């Protein structure tokens, strides 16, 4: 495997435009959420299409309202709308920093551990089921 001795794929190989492009997209999202209110009737921000079609809460239901609450400094309101999204945000930020090639060296091991998709699959699917159970502890997971 002679080619393997050349480090073909390492952090320096991340395209330079990627980080700035992701930052721009994030800033655009924050700007939209700052001005548009997903709680208002007739808002330009769409409701969950899956929930509108099926009546079932998906893992993303309440994500827009949660992010809107966060942008306006309302952490409790955000947790009420989509707790998994809010709790995942620091991890998602870490993963995005890695994709952008901006991850500090000391965090590579942590990002690697958190990027194992197997626990994520279990958590997300369990969450999808649990937030539809109409009983007391589970209803906290549903939006609202």
């Amino acid at each position, binding site marked *: *495997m002679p080619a393997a*001795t050349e*480090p073909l794929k390492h952090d320096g190989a991340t395209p330079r435009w990627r980080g700035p492009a992701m930052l721009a997209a994030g800033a655009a999202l924050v700007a939209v959420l700052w001005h548009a209110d997903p709680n208002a009737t007739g808002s330009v921000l769409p409701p969950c*299409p899956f929930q509108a079609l099926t009546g079932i809460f998906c*893992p993303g239901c309440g994500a827009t309202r949660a992010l809107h609450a966060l942008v306006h400094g309302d952490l409790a309101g955000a947790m009420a709308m989509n707790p998994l999204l809010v709790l995942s945000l620091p991890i998602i930020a870490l993963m995005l920093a890695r994709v952008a090639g901006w991850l500090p060296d000391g965090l590579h*091991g942590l990002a690697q551990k958190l990027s194992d998709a*197997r626990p994520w*699959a279990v958590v*997300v699917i369990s969450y999808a089921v649990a937030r539809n159970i109409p009983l007391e502890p589970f209803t906290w997971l549903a939006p609202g």
Partner: protein
Amino acid sequence: MNCTNCGQNNADGAAFCVSCGAALSAAPPSPPPAAAAPAYSAPAYSAPAPAAQPPVPNHLVWAILATLCCCLPTGIVAIIFAAQVDGKAAAGDYDGARKASDNAKLWSWISLGIGLVGGLAYAGLMMLGVIADAGSY
């Protein structure tokens, strides 16, 4: 041993850095230009594969974003494929992992695409509706 590229501590005998994917060499830091293939990784290497066995990307972050922000079951499909990437890579099935990786990427893009097109279409219709309402007064 520590990766000479990023400093990540890797298991002894690992062929590639778990963190940055750079090739690890058992010999001291300077990698030999054309060393003989390490015996343990030779069987997994199939002819036209691009660059030996770097960690197979699971594209997880896009699958999560697609699921949490696009409200689509296709995002869950992407997460399941991402989980298969890690499961198969851990079991040494790199071809299977790479296929699952491509699928994870594909389904993430499908989800993000549907979410973006649907969201923009919805926003456009609402704006037109608002404009139409405003015009009727």
